[in-house]
């Protein structure tokens, strides 16, 4: 079979890191090829070399039997290579067609939007993208914006599409739509590289998969001849058990109670609209939902990091609604925020100093800081939670995402709070770190903590949570037992559709929501 693309012996060295070590990668016409690997395995580097973003140190790239030189993304685009980043490169105020022709000069000085629109409509229909060229991009849901990115590439007639973590921001239904589009592209004879660390998606859609570890391509397999187990082992380099062992436990007394909470965002939009929840001792209550449906605002309001318009937050039956953040912490609520690097830690300060963030008034000796005690506790955290660091006097910002998360999670768990609010604990982490974080959350649960777990990953919620509450537009659409939950049911609720009710009712509301949040 003829290879569309061959990357041979690619070597890319960054200062102190061998990002790509003799990587070989082939891509055939009409194939969906997954590139799997942990963070830092070198898959993004490889794709950026292919897109002309980085110059490789040595190696060869062949396209259709011809050796090519990729000096910049411009060269790559000219060769029919296109890339969809995780963060979309769209001008939100522009329409779909304006975004698509942006940067193209082929038609001379004058824009012919009319003709472009018609071509787009035709392209969109042919590939099942269902896009209106005249729609303003900013008003479109995330999943549709992603399709605009794909349309942009098709308009440039890209034959090789690179998608970087395309499903990270999608609901299950949007994901299905994306996959349908990808299959159409495959039928069309185009090739797709799917950069991801989600195994189930690879098994679902890819034809072949190349696994990268520590800068090397360790294996390429046809999907039919491999298993999720094998891929995980190849990716991590050891056996991983990601099926969390949930032991049977009794639900304790309610610890954290949220009553009729109403919260606004900075622009005055109501993001939490009369929400009530109860988290019991020894329970993990999961909050599912697409990002931007008020989950962050909920978490911040519980800690009183955000003003509460009305409603109450109770801890162990005592009203803590109006108390300061410090008093919330004192009363026994810990919080692991979504933004590890900008909220959960001070990246400029040392690991030791970060280990006492929020506890600075606890480690004291009279008027002074108990620096030795703080250091001891930092060393304890590093040992107990297996944080890989060169030492506790190194800047916390130098830690990898997983290790930084372990530091923050460990700090919040070790405070001995009764309730723990955790927001997107494994976002962007690799499998090994996810395993560690999940283990620690379950351990905290065993110790009887009440845990409110906010996550956009259904897999995470299904694995960890006892009950899953689905949040949509600031309200709880429903609470299901994780044991008997179906992904479809939760997915529908995430999209604002009550199972069994007419979906039309949620349509306009959903669009309005996206206009607010995007």
């Amino acid at each position, binding site marked *: 079979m003829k290879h569309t693309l061959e990357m041979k012996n690619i070597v890319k060295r960054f200062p102190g890191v061998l990002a790509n070590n003799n990587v070989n990668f082939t891509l055939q016409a009409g194939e969906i090829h997954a590139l799997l690997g942990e963070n830092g395995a070198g898959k993004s580097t490889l794709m950026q070399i292919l897109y002309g973003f*980085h110059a490789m140190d040595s190696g060869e790239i062949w396209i259709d039997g011809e050796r090519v030189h990729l000096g910049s993304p411009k060269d790559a685009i000219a060769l029919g290579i296109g890339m969809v980043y995780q963060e979309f490169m769209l001008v939100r105020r522009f329409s779909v067609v304006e975004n698509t022709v942006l940067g193209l000069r082929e038609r001379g000085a004058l824009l012919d939007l009319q003709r472009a629109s018609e071509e787009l409509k035709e392209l969109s229909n042919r590939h099942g993208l269902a896009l209106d060229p005249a729609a303003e991009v900013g008003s479109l849901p995330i999943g549709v914006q992603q399709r605009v990115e794909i349309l942009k590439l098709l308009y440039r007639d890209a034959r090789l599409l690179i998608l970087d*973590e395309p499903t990270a921001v999608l609901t299950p239904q949007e994901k299905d739509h994306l996959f349908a589009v990808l299959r159409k592209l495959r039928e069309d004879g185009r090739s797709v590289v799917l950069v991801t660390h989600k195994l189930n998606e690879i098994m679902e859609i890819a034809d072949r998969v190349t696994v990268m570890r520590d800068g090397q391509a360790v294996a390429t397999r046809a999907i039919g001849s491999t298993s999720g187990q094998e891929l995980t082992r190849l990716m991590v380099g050891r056996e991983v058990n990601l099926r969390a062992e949930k032991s049977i436990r009794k639900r304790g007394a309610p610890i954290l109670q949220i009553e009729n909470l109403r919260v606004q965002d900075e622009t005055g939009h109501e993001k939490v609209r009369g929400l009530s929840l109860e988290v019991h001792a020894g329970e993990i209550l999961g909050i599912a939902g697409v990002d931007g449906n008020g989950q962050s605002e909920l978490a911040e309001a519980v800690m009183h990091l955000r003003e509460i318009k009305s409603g109450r937050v109770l801890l162990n039956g005592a009203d803590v609604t109006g108390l300061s953040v410090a008093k919330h912490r004192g009363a026994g609520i810990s919080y692991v925020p979504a933004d590890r690097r900008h909220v*959960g830690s001070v990246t400029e300060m040392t690991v030791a100093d970060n280990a006492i963030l929020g506890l*600075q008034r606890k480690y004291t000796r009279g008027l002074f800081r108990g620096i030795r005690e703080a250091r001891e506790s930092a060393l304890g955290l590093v040992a107990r939670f297996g944080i890989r660091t060169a030492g506790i006097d190194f800047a916390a910002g130098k830690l990898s995402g997983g290790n930084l998360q372990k530091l923050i999670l460990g700090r919040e768990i070790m405070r001995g709070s009764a309730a723990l609010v955790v927001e997107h604990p494994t976002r962007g982490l690799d499998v090994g770190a996810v395993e560690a974080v999940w283990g620690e959350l379950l351990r905290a649960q065993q110790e009887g903590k009440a845990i409110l777990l906010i996550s956009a990953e259904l897999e995470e919620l299904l694995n960890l949570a006892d009950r899953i509450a689905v949040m949509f537009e600031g309200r709880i659409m429903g609470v299901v037992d994780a044991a008997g939950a179906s992904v479809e049911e939760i997915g529908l609720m995430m999209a604002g559709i009550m199972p069994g009710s007419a979906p039309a009712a949620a349509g306009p509301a959903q669009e309005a929501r996206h206009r607010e949040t995007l």
Partner: protein
Amino acid sequence: MFVTAFLFLSYGASPWQAYYALFHEPFGTLRGFGYALVRTSPLSLIALGTIVSWRSGFAYLGFEGCFVLGAAATSWLALLTGPGERVGPVSFFLFLPLAILFGFLAGGVWAGLVGLVRARLGGNEVLISLMANYVAIFILQYLVGGPMRAPGSLPETRLLPRTTWLPFILPGTRAHAGILIAIAAAGLVWMLLQKMPLGYEMIVTGFNAAAARYAGIDVARRILLAAFFAGGLGGLAGMVEVLGSQHRLMDGISGGVGFVGIVVALLARLNPLAAIPTALLYGGLSVGADAMQRRASIPSSITFILQSLAVLFVLAFDALRYYKINLPGFSPRTPPPVADEASR
């Protein structure tokens, strides 16, 4: 230094001679060293104020204002203790703590007002503090031109009573005890920032206000406190200058020290312990510049160029340190919006 050497050449003077004059006077003669210490004291206090406020994320630039108000407050207090005044002579050991308190409060409250605007109303402290300087300087002009004016033609107060002067500490020089106050202040600032939970909270606030709020730190109050401390130190600088060196309050007493002190703090990389040596170097250079002007007849503004170049090089060095790894072709990651983290 090398660059400035060329400037000397254009005046027909040997760079070596010029540099000899520049450094020999302040650091080779007792008298010159005394003068250097006189200039060092207010400079280092202002630098310390800068360190407290800037490390807390409060970009305060209003030290000129704090300086003149601190000087005015202590002058007023000192004049009250003059013979025949309402209070009458008091012991220096009673007067000094009171003077420190007055100087500190005058500057602290002045800067605190700016802090209040920033913390409660979200105003921009850079602009407000700069503008506040002018207000303070006009207040000073009003005071020395009106209520506190001594009979005579110049807008200045009477000479302060001798009992209120800071003692001279090096026989045969003008060096006064202000430098001791500055050293003590440096120790206290270091202790606050490095050893006390309050300082930890202020530094966290300075680095990352979102993380500070998350950690239960009252960001508004920490900023207010930082402004108060910073302004207080600026006020102390005014007190030291008026009680140690000028011995009377006059228009233009600050001579721009409120800005030079900020430069000193930057050169000391906001490290309180490095502030005093840096201020000494800076103060010494300005004393040496005067000597150089007298002996080699090179304008003292050349020294100002030298000092400015030093600042530029320090800042440029920082930039080089940060950006070296990003030279084209070596760049570990040109800012791509990609989730992968290269360093694990």
